[in-house]
């Protein structure tokens, strides 16, 4: 009887806490839960053209985040994250593998936490209601940008665990850009032996996506170019890298507003692209890639490429705002 009373009180306190949270606090709670909770689930992801199903496993072992995300449809592709190291296992004929052979990536220096506490400066945050996702009760939080230079995001957060259950990205006309949704989600206590990635046999090819930086990367001021404009609230992450295309060094800078990110790549314009259009654009799902060949006073032209999960007009404005120092 005493146990029942305590359980009831505990439940009531949890319920009261959940009720009292503001939209911002829900996002903070989600961010914390995503980092600290062990969970396993299946989710569907629709990018406006293709629908895929993924198995998602997230475990904290010895204070390190370990994740495994497997593609359940089509060719095998499995992403593994062990702290700062991320690898992806693909089949021999995966085009991702061919791409990797051409581009030698740099390494990311540090990681950063998503600054959800500053989201309110650029987005209107609101609790819009309650729904049921993956057989769980979820609080829906709308994250609508104050300026139409980025997409609105709607998040369904599990009331019990504060884990993300569903997200929708929508454009300024409220059209769906992408949606992901867990179809089942379980939190669990995971034994280390149950989730050790290192000793696993792999059947495909393992590609090391990024590791910890081993050399100093010059600051953006040292490389002779800067950005005239980025959308308000986007901050340069500590992830500047240098990679290479053949003998050409590629400078890479990433910006994030806490929810979405874009990357800028600058390299000497390759001779093979002299006859290519001065400006070009590719769209993949919700991600836009734009390139500009820029002739600057120092001599040879440069190729500026911006990639981001942002509306086209915003990505183009960022690309056109890249200036080369005289």
């Amino acid at each position, binding site marked *: 009887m005493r146990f029942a009373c305590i359980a009831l009180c505990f439940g009531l306190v949890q319920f009261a806490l959940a009720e009292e949270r503001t939209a911002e606090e829900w996002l903070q709670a989600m961010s914390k839960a995503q980092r600290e909770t062990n969970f396993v689930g299946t989710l569907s992801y629709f990018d406006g053209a293709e*629908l895929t199903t993924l198995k998602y496993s997230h475990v904290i072992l010895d204070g390190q985040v370990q994740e495994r995300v497997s*593609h359940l*449809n089509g060719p095998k592709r499995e*992403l593994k994250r062990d702290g700062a190291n991320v690898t992806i296992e693909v089949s021999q004929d995966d085009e991702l593998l061919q791409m990797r052979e051409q581009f030698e*990536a740099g390494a990311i220096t540090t990681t950063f936490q998503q600054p959800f506490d500053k989201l309110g400066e650029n987005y209107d945050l609101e609790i819009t209601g309650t729904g049921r996702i993956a057989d769980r009760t979820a609080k829906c939080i709308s994250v609508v940008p104050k300026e139409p230079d980025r997409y609105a995001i709607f998040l369904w957060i599990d009331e019990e665990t504060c884990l993300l259950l569903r997200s929708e990205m929508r454009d300024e006309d409220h059209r769906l850009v992408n949606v992901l949704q867990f179809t089942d989600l379980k939190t669990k206590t995971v034994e280390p032996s149950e989730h050790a990635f290192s000793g696993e046999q792999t059947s495909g090819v393992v590609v090391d996506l990024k590791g910890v930086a081993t050399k100093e990367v010059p600051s953006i001021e040292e490389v002779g170019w800067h950005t005239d404009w980025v959308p308000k609230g986007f901050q340069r992450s500590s992830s500047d890298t240098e990679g290479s295309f053949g003998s050409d060094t590629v400078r*890479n800078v990433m910006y994030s507003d806490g929810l979405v990110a874009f990357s800028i790549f600058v390299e000497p314009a390759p001779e093979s692209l002299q006859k290519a259009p001065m400006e*070009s654009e*590719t*769209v993949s799902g919700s991600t836009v890639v734009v390139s500009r060949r820029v002739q600057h006073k120092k001599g040879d032209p440069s190729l500026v490429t911006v990639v981001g999960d942002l509306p086209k007009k915003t990505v183009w404005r960022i690309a056109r705002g890249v200036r080369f120092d005289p």
Partner: protein
Amino acid sequence: MSQTIKQSLSACIDGEATNEELRRVIDETLSNEELKRDWADYSSISAVLRGDKLTVEKELPDWNKLAASFPDDSNIVSLQNRGRVNRRTMVRSASVVLGLAATLVLGIAFLSPFFPGADDQATNLADSQTTSAEGIASNDPVDVSGVRASNVVNLPDDMQERHMQYLLEHDKNVTVVSGTPLTIPKVVSRKASTTP
């Protein structure tokens, strides 16, 4: 197959479907081979319009998993108050515009014998607009801003490859720096073959 379900299917492919439409299309498609083929066709058309490359083997969704992944609409908080342009509405609007245009043309044709200068005036107006447009184009420096989006399919292979590589590189940045369920599914699902 009803035209309505095809319209809903098209809306799904265009990313314009409401949850209700999406649910209905998924339910219908589970048991309808023709609709599955239409889904593939519409996806291909959509891919071509977007400038994506088409693959020989078009991967079809797993309909049972898809059906399971979308709960009943009544269980989802409704956020569908957008002003989507319905195809039927578009057809209706187009009919009205065409009707008005036809009336105007017939009216001019009927009245022109009574107003001999009207044709010349219209021609002069058209000429002046054309000349003006040409003048602007020839006097301005070469504008390269238009060379994009619509002709993505004509991008040189080198540029397409570069775009793809930078896309993947961005994916990796996002995954390593702020990898969450919000970002990782996009990376794992990225289809190299469908991106120009």
